[in-house]
């Protein structure tokens, strides 16, 4: 049965039985979304100076701002995302303690980021101070979101109230769910710098969040901001994530400073996951476009499936 006919049938039936059927809404049946993204920008506010090999002369936030503006004007629905490690790497961080980095991200129109290990380099209080500085600025762009679902922030209330496990953004014909995961602190972050913040298994943390986004929030596209690393010795990395967490459409990765020209496509139980990472230091901006076609309306269980045949 053609989708349109089916909707019409259902609509008539719903009216007859006076039971509203949410699924037969007027939302557009298809849409497009462009994800623009960075990772491991590491306070590289200015372009790389001489002596940096192939990176010399690349990067710089004033250029990145221009590129983002041009792309967003050309693409329509878009999200600007980052995979963490905004802090540490140039004197800008030593002098401005990450506050300038976050303020510039808000000015560029970032929608969300996650936390990398280096974002804890000055401790939790300084991280919160950088977030506060970004939130307090007077700018037409809204403050961006900080997303992570595998850190336990219970012991760090000021940070906890600025973090969320996921967010949902709706565009015409596309509803996007975004969540995030971070790398284990052991051996990377001094204990005194993550006081009150615990780490949990990222796959186990992601599974219920992805399920919630798909089944309750009913998003069309699930995006994970990951600071696990592209390929690691341990059990957790972006290449292994899709097999452990089905239902993720895109992983925007960081941590390993991996330069990929195009995303790595990995099959998973519910389709395909695109794993991407674009180097570090803001020398590249990643772009992933997705076209979403919403599926046919069907009952979620029971014996009434013949309507589909």
């Amino acid at each position, binding site marked *: 049965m053609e989708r349109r006919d089916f909707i019409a*049938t*259902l609509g008539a*039936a*719903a009216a*007859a*039985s006076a039971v509203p*059927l949410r*699924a*037969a809404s007027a939302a557009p049946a298809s849409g497009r979304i462009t994800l623009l993204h960075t990772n491991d920008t590491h306070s590289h*506010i200015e*372009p790389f100076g*001489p*002596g940096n090999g192939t990176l010399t*002369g*690349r990067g710089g*936030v*004033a*250029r*990145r*701002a*221009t*590129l983002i503006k041009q*792309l967003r004007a050309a693409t329509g629905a878009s999200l600007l995302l980052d995979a963490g490690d905004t802090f540490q*790497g*140039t*004197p*800008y961080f030593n*002098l401005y303690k990450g506050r300038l980095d976050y303020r510039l991200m808000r*000015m*560029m129109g970032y929608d969300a980021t996650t936390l990398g290990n280096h974002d804890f380099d*000055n401790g939790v209080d300084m991280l919160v101070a950088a977030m506060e500085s970004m939130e307090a600025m007077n700018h037409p762009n809204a403050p961006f979101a900080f997303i992570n679902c595998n850190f336990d922030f219970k012991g760090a209330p000021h940070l906890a109230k600025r973090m969320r496990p996921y967010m949902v953004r709706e565009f015409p014909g596309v509803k996007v769910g975004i969540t995030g995961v971070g790398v284990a602190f*052991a*051996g*990377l972050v*001094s204990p005194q710098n993550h006081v009150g913040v615990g780490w949990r298994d990222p796959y186990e943390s992601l599974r219920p969040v992805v399920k919630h986004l*798909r*089944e309750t929030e009913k998003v*069309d*596209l699930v995006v994970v901001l990951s600071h696990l690393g592209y390929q690691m010795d341990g059990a957790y990395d972006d290449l292994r994530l899709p097999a452990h967490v089905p239902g993720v459409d895109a992983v925007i990765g960081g941590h390993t400073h991996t330069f990929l020209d*195009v*995303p790595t496509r990995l099959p998973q139980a519910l*389709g395909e996951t*695109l794993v*991407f990472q674009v180097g570090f230091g803001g020398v*590249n*901006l*990643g*772009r*992933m*476009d*997705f076209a*979403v*076609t*919403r599926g046919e*309306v069907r*009952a979620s269980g*029971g*014996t*009434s499936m013949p*309507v589909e045949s």
Partner: protein
Amino acid sequence: MRSLFIVPLLATLAAAQAPAKVKAGLVQSIPVDGSIPDDPVMAAYLAPYAAKIKASFGQPLVKAPLGLFRGRPGEENLLGYWVADTMRAAAAKAIGMPVAFAFTNSGGLRANLRRGQLKVEDIYEVMPFENEVVIIELTGAEVIQVVREGLLHRGGEPCSGVLVKVSGTPENPILTVTWADGKPIDPTALVHVATTDYLYGGGDSIPTLRKGRNLVRTGLTLRQVMLDRCAALDKAGKELLPPAPGRYQVPPEFREAIREKKLSL
């Protein structure tokens, strides 16, 4: 029509939408380079911050006519040797006693020192972290174990005060560690060791450093002792030159076995 008859039943079930079909379109990594003009608003906002950076970090420090480099894989990390020497000397000065050994991690050195006039910012780029120089006591056996852990973890980490040689075959390797003057290390002797609070705290997987006794915090960041050393050289009319190579003698077949995690020392 059949479906009309089953609708009352259907309506009692949760209506749901099949997963959307998602298709990736254009995917690319776009270079951010000089072909893209600066956003004027952003550039204007940044200007005063950049000026302040330039004023404090653009200060000339010392001349380094040869530069100091971390070395490509297989080459010695002469920058790392200099950093280890510098922390060892600063630690000895801080406690007024000899410090036999210093150890740092290559991963913590984030840039090379280019040839020519160094500026304050160059040292910040090498060592952006706020790591503090700490002094601990280890036995001679533990010093050798720290060297071994660095070898297996990263192929040999920057250190000062010892000579390290791997010989034999990759199947039957022999590790020889002596003091820098070639004298044997007494495994039972307690010596002072300089490292960073990061490594002492378990960072970068050198577990034996955590066994350190009688911790002394110097209150000096590793970066500060590097800045102080450069300033002292310049004040004395000297240049910053790389230390001599030869601290690690690890033939290529062993380096390969280490990379493949096949070497047991």
